[in-house]
Each structure stands twice: as C-alpha cells, then as structure tokens.
C-alpha cells in the first residue's frame, strides 16, 4: 500500500498565491525526504496531509484515508513535529509529552509510560523532569520529536527537524531519524531545505519547487553507485588537493570541501596520510553519495 498518494493536488491562497500546483506523487513507506527551498510549499503539503487545511483542488490520500474527509483517523496514525517553537517553558518534558499522549487518546498510565519511553528513545533521561524552559535547542528539538512519537504513529511528519542545531546536533538528529525509520518500523517524511542533509538518511526523495513537483524517486535510482569521500580541512585546501592529485586521487573542490572518489579500499588511509604529511587540521572525512544535488535545479545545488 502506498503511504501518501496525491492526484493533481493544488492549493491557492485567496486565489492569487499558489502554494502547490498540480502535485501528483505516490510515496512508498520508508524514509522520505521532502526537499525544497523555503516557501516551496513543503509546510502547506504537510498541513494538507494532516487535514488542517483543505486543498483547493485535486485529491490526497494518506494510508488510503482521505484527510479532508476523515482527519481524525489520519491524525491518529500520524505524528507531527512542527518547524517552530512549540513547547511551553514552565512544565517538564515528561509532563508535557504525557499530556499530549492523552490528547492523542492514550489512557493515563499508558500515556505516562509511553511518554518516558519516547523521551528515552530520543535521548532524554533524567533531564525530562526539568522544566523545558531551561533546555538547549537540541533538547527542545528532541522533545518535539518525542511528542510526535508518543502515540506510536505509523508515519512521522517532521518539518525541518534540524533547524537551529549545530553540526553535531544535526548529525545526532539525523541518526535518530534514521533509526526511527529503520528500527522502529515507522515511516518518516523529513522536510528540509538542505538536500545534502536528507539525502544521507532517506530511501526516497520528493523535490518540490514553487509548489510544483521537480522529481520524486528512490535515492538509489537517483545516485550513481560510486561514492565519494568529503574531506574538510580548515586551511591548506589547495596544497591538499595537489598532494592528493599527485597520489593519483583526483580531488575536486566543492565549496570548502574536497570530494574524492572512493574507488579503492585504501583511499581513506591515503587521504589521512596526505593530511598528516602536510600537517593540516582535518575537520572531517566522511562518505557521501554522489551528487544527488546535480539532479535538481541549480538553485537547489546552491543550497547544499
């Protein structure tokens, strides 16, 4: 069964502003990246899926349920994490998530148990008894994720879950989302304007721009088999590129990163050796898939 199916979905505000235009897409369960620049219509799309706003035209089905007709049944199966701040400062995370569990229809004890489970899964342990007002941005994002998980949905809709997080926080949040999608058996739609971020964890991508569908496909169909290594050094990038080329590793500069094809087993070691020889401060060395960004419009690439 398809997770989300839309047919010619259109949403215009006041007859002038078009948020979504003739969007036809069919999404299979898994981790889905919904990518588009700010204002591309991602949030509008999510609100239509939740039955919060009616579409101006076309049809939409989530779990084969029409959210415009039967929003309660859809919402019972869906957890939503909004983009903006959504937490009261003067209660504890445990209490707040329990309350929202009850609003999702869980009985009192079940809500309390599932709230502490959900908070544990997102990595909040003893902190959960403290007031949310004292939390860091990363912890608040985790609470927002926990409240979306508390009623055990079959689908999570995450609107910009890495917003405002530092690089380490982003990686942790993405790893968490990946775990939810793979180990928990819950499908996830991740909205983001950062393609490079979601392509790391998603099975499929839906790219929209200006309310129109750009492309929707499985990541595997979009990427080449060959992987690349991204190397980031805080200085001496040119020297490193030269050194790598001399070693037979064609390094390509991409912003502050050097991209090196990962075609041999010792590529990692040779790069590390080259960095060590030049005595450069290495920021990161990680594997990434090959240029999904190139499949999208130039504007998208610029965002990566």
């Amino acid at each position, binding site marked *: 069964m398809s997770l989300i199916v839309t047919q010619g979905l259109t949403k215009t505000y006041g007859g002038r502003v078009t948020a979504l235009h003739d969007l036809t897409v069919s999404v299979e369960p898994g981790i889905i990246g919904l990518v588009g620049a700010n204002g591309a219509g991602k949030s509008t799309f999510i609100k239509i899926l939740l039955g*919060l706003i009616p579409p101006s035209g076309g049809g939409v089905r989530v779990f084969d349920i029409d959210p415009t007709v039967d*929003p309660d049944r859809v*919402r019972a199966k869906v957890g939503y994490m909004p983009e903006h701040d959504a937490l009261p400062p003067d209660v504890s995370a445990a209490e707040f998530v329990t309350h929202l569990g009850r*609003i999702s*229809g869980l009985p009192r004890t079940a809500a309390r148990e599932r709230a502490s489970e959900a908070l544990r899964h997102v990595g909040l342990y003893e902190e959960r008894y403290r007031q949310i007002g004292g939390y860091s941005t990363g912890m608040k994002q985790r609470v927002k994720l926990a409240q979306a998980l508390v*009623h055990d949905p079959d689908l999570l809709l995450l609107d910009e879950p890495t917003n405002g997080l530092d690089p380490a926080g982003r990686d942790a949040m993405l790893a968490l989302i990946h775990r939810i999608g793979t*180990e928990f058996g819950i499908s996830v739609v991740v909205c983001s304007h950062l393609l490079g971020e979601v392509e790391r964890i998603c099975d499929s991508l839906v790219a929209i721009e200006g309310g129109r569908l750009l492309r929707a496909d499985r990541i595997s169909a979009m990427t080449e088999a060959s992987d690349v290594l991204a190397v980031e050094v805080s200085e001496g990038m040119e020297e490193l590129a030269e050194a790598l080329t001399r070693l037979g590793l064609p390094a390509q500069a991409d912003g502050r990163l050097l991209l090196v094809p990962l075609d041999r087993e010792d590529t990692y070691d040779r790069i590390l050796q080259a960095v060590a020889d030049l005595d450069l401060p290495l920021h990161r060395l990680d594997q990434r898939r090959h240029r999904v960004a190139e499949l999208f419009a130039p504007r998208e690439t610029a965002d990566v």
Partner: protein
Amino acid sequence: MSEASVIHDIGYQRYTGPRLGRGAVFGAMYVHGLRAAFGLGRSAKAKIFPWLVVGIVTLVAVILAAVRSQTGIVPLTYLGFADAMSWLIIFFAAIVAPELVSRDMRAGVLPLYFSRPLRAADYVGAKVAAMVTAIWALLAVPQFIMFLGAAFTTKNGMSDVWDELGDLLPGWGYSLLWALLFTGIGLLIASLTGKRAFAAGGIVAVFLMTTPVVGVLSILPSSDAQQLAGLASPMTLISGVGQWLIPTANSGMNVGNFGPVYAIEAVTLIAACLLLLLARYRRVAAL
C-alpha cells in the same frame, strides 16, 4: 548460564493498547485546564495568585458563617456574597483566562494540539468548561461553607436546613451565571493575545471601564434610564438578572420591569462570546 540470563529488550515497542475517543480526549483537556487554573502541576509562582483569591473568599465565608452562628444576623445572602466577591472574581478571571489560552498561543503549542484528533470545538469547549468550573467552585465552595455554618446552628431542626438549602441552590445557580459570563469575556479577550499581561490588563479594563458608565446612567433623571443602567456593565448585568429571578436578593439593583431585558442581554452576551471564541479557534486550528 547464558541461556538463563535475561535479555532486556530496550528497543522500540509498538503500542497495542486502547486508543480512547474524543470524549476521553475532551476529559483530559478539561482536567488539564482545571489543574492549570489553580496552578497545579506548575511552579509555585503560578499557584500564588489563584490560591490567594481562594484563601480570601474562603476566609470571608468562614467569617460570615461565624458571625451568623454567633449573632444570628445574616450579613450577606448567598447571592449577596457572589456580588460582594465580584472584584475578586475579575482578578481571578484575569489570571486564569490568560493561563488557559494565552499561554498556549505564546508557546506555539496549538499546532501540536490540532495535529491530533482534537477539534477546535473540543479545545474551546474544554477550556470554557474548565474555567467555568474553576470560577463556579471559587464561589460555590464558600457558599457551601456558609450553608454548613447555617445548617449546624439551626434552631428548628431539619425544616430550617431545607429552607437554607432552598436559598443555597439558587445561590449556586447565580454563581454559575457569574462563572459563565466571566469565562466568556475572559477567554475571548485572552484568546486575542499571546501576552499574558496584555490579556489580564484587557480583562480588568473591560470591567473597569464599564462601571463608570453604569454610574453615569444611574443618576439620570429618567427612571427608565436608571433601571436600564445596569445593562452597561457585565457585573451589574448579572446582579440585575439575579434581582429579577430572585426578588428577595436585595442586591440594591432596581431593574423595574426590565428584568427580561437583563436576562436576554446576559444570555446573548455569553453566547456571542463563546461563538466568537469558537470562530477564532476555527481559524487558528487551520494554521
């Protein structure tokens, strides 16, 4: 050995238990609102004002009951008690209404509520019910203390207790009317702003500004104008309805033959406030 050891599965567990319907969700929302009204489950700071008001009205009721039992004089009837406490109720409403609705708006919690099987009408209904209950309890409990004081010092046994109960029940009904009107106006004003201080100020202002209007109208030479003067302020409006329904109320209001006008305005005002509140949240829920 290794077969006997228990492996604790700390992986994700799916939930297979019952999922309750809208009624239970409404109930959870109502209880949450009622607790919030008295600062339960909140910091000590949130408890100060509600419990200060509760303390004062209870103390007044105890004193009234004591005076009555010692001297036999009835300083205030049940209705008179509600009238006398009206400024404290405004104070209470100005604290509770922002706590119930402005807070959610300020923190941006509404999208989390409305992405769940909770309708705008459920949200508004639960908040209104919680605040009506809170204000009603604020008056009804002290009234009950007064009743107990009277019942235990009665001279003619059960028949006096029954008479007293006959006074208490209309008093409770009158308190409910107060609660409905203050809830309607209070929540409507509070739902317009996320800033608690503005909401509280706005609520007090509505009652504060309308009182002088009544004062001016009630000294006009026309007796009709005097009798209709109470319509201008929510507080005198309720007193007027009470005076019309229970002529022995002795509230100092003279409503003449205009009692029904007072009743109609009160009902219309309450209904209008609640409908506007619902309309407001219908819009908010879609965002």
